[in-house]
């Protein structure tokens, strides 16, 4: 059996830790120095460090608010790739595989897992680089299917329901002002014209008062 790999995330950089660990207790163990060791389901630790650093360049934590690392985007991506999506269960994968025109989209054989593995190899010792050099390196691969996936998954991991491992402590929803899957706006729908209707966000399992599983866990 494959040795279990972990990624250690400093608690200070992980948003809303309390909510998150309540939600995801079995997956996370808090160490004495306050950092969190998260078991990885797909990536090796070295790969997870590259993905974390690259996602942070796509959605950086800065003066405009928290970024990909704080939202736990790496946990989201790891779990998606470990699940059916990563194994290409959302795609028609019978051959023959032939090149076609751009209007037919991605026609390749490689699964999301394989695209990541290959793409990460190309990034080398990415985490060791300074942010400006990291940006340069990402600009060079901007047009690749790997980067397209990484960018999409970073946004998803930042703003998905926390059941999927990202949006730790609902930090992404807090930042954009999304209240979560509330059950009714019957009294609000025609009110507040041009004014923001904002609430402290809640996750789907908080709304329902019971745990909810993502598709990747079924």
């Amino acid at each position: 059996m494959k040795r279990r790999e972990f990624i250690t995330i400093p608690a200070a950089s992980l948003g809303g830790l309390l909510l998150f660990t309540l939600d995801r207790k079995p997956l996370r163990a808090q160490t004495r120095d306050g950092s969190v060791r998260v078991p990885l389901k797909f990536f090796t630790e070295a790969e997870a460090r590259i993905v974390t650093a690259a996602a942070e360049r796509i959605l950086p934590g800065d003066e405009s608010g928290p970024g990909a690392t704080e939202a736990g985007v790496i946990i989201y991506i790891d779990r998606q790739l470990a699940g059916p999506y990563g194994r290409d269960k959302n795609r028609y994968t019978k051959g023959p595989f032939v090149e076609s025109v751009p209007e037919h989209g991605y026609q390749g054989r490689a699964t999301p897992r394989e695209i990541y593995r290959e793409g990460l190899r190309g990034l080398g010792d990415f985490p060791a680089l300074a942010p400006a050099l990291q940006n340069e390196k990402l600009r060079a691969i901007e047009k690749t299917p790997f980067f397209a996936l990484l960018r999409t998954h970073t946004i998803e991991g930042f703003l998905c329901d926390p059941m999927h491992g990202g949006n730790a402590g609902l930090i992404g929803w807090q930042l954009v002002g999304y209240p979560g899957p509330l059950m009714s706006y019957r009294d609000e729908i025609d009110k507040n014209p041009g004014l923001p209707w904002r609430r402290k966000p809640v996750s789907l399992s908080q709304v329902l008062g019971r745990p909810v599983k993502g598709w990747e866990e079924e």
Partner: protein
Amino acid sequence: MKQLKPVDVVIAGGGWTGLLMAKEIATRTSLTVAVLERGPARKMADYAAGMDELDYNVRLRLMQNITEETVTHRHSVRGDAVPVRQYGSFQPGTGVGGAGEHWGGVSYRYEPDHFTLATHLREKHGAARLPENLAVQDWGVTYDELESDYWRAEQLIGVGGKAGNLRGKIVEGGNIFEAPRSHEYPNPPHKSNYLMTAFHKGAIDLGYHPYPVPAATLTRTYRNPDGVTRAGCVYCGFCNRYGCMIGAKAQPSNTLLPVLASRKNFELRPGCWVRRVIHRGGKAEGVSYTDAAGEEFLQPASIVVLSSWTLNNARLLLLSGAGERYDPATGKGTLGKNLTHQVCAGLQMFFDKPLNSFMGAGGMGEAIGDFEGEGKLDAGMLRGGGFRTQSSGDGPIASFGRIPPGEAKANWGAEWKKSSLRWYDRMGSVMFEGDHLAYRHNYMDLDPTYTDKFGDPLLRMTLDWTDHERLQERFAMRIQMGLAKAMGARPGGMLRGVGKRYSVTYYQSSHVQGGVIMGASPETSVVNPWLQHWRVPNLWVLGGSTFPQSGWGNPTLSALALTCRAADALINRYLKRPGGLA
């Protein structure tokens, strides 16, 4: 193959049209009805836990499993097709209720000249001035003949709206361009939010005629003629691509199954994938199917009804050899012809103020009728379309990163993130939905290379846009720019759109039509005006596959109305005297 006990009626496909036909037959006759649905059972209680943008709006959990079956596409008869490997330009649903579970509830009627389009265009423009390869046809049914069925369908699902033409009397505030309707809508329209109010005002300033979009997301508690009561919408925003957690959006599971559940002559079998229609000497004998465990069955029946999604109805008939295959080179044959999609193009509009766009409902919106079907169009345009703005509920994943063009150099990084936050919840859109005319070169047949999970050939679409659709798109963009400015919004990028060539990579609409078209003659259509197969009279085909061409509006209400009509013909006429009705 295991042979089952015969039933009177077997229905392949448990979506809107199949279950509606089942309801009509099972409640009005004593015939036994079995509905075979390849996907899983669905129920309202599951939908609250489905209020998850990632699994449902991104991973498309209510759609057909694309690893098991897809379609192939090519732009012309020259060249090979490749598979649509991931969902893009349309999204077929699966499971009990079919696409009727995840639809948006927009419930338009088609206008009268749409049903006689071939005649109408010929009379208006002269045959010589129409594109040479135009293949539009008359439906074999007129709006007047269908009006009472439209009204039945509207009552069944509880459409909310405002009539603009009541028995010929024009009513301000409704769609004054619509055809006469015999009744006001069963329910009032949705309330109006900031975006809709801005659209309404902007449209009036420009001299257009706005009206509220008719929607089957209930605007109040409603009891339909079958005695089914559903709750009014609460605007949770989980509507398109989701099932409704309170049953406010009309879905087969909350509108038809409550009636069918108590019927002893009705049986629903989920997980059953119909593979062939068995027929001999002009008579259907039943269907063969594979169940979820992989076991094969033969279900004999006196009447066979096909009601799976558009593309699969055509595929089933092609696989079963029921009908003469269309040949685009000669124009001969009818099965597979007149594949149409829809001409959809939108414009992003950015506002200074937040829209609270996470609130909303499918079909909640404002539209203008000034260019629907026809109106003041550009030179060379035969048909126009509808324009509307909609608040159907936007999740944060879909919303983030929508920024006006030129706001950031890249679509990632610090500058992009800052701009994405600045413009978050500030984007609305005005969508154009136009008639897609039928052409000789757009059709369906079986792919010679690619197969489904059983090894059966996939359906092959040969489809591309023509200059007419590009004219429609250019026209749409100009009207949309005007509307955006009149609303005080900053125009942004284009959404959906026709482009140079048909693309399967981005969503356009799930309104795909044709392949098993209806018409007045067996020389030009597969089914007659009562949706009965011309050559196999105990075989009936329902839904969008029977439309000779796409209209500008969403097709569901028309599919329901035509099913009501087909059910009446089957029950009142065919059962008394089995045989061809036409």
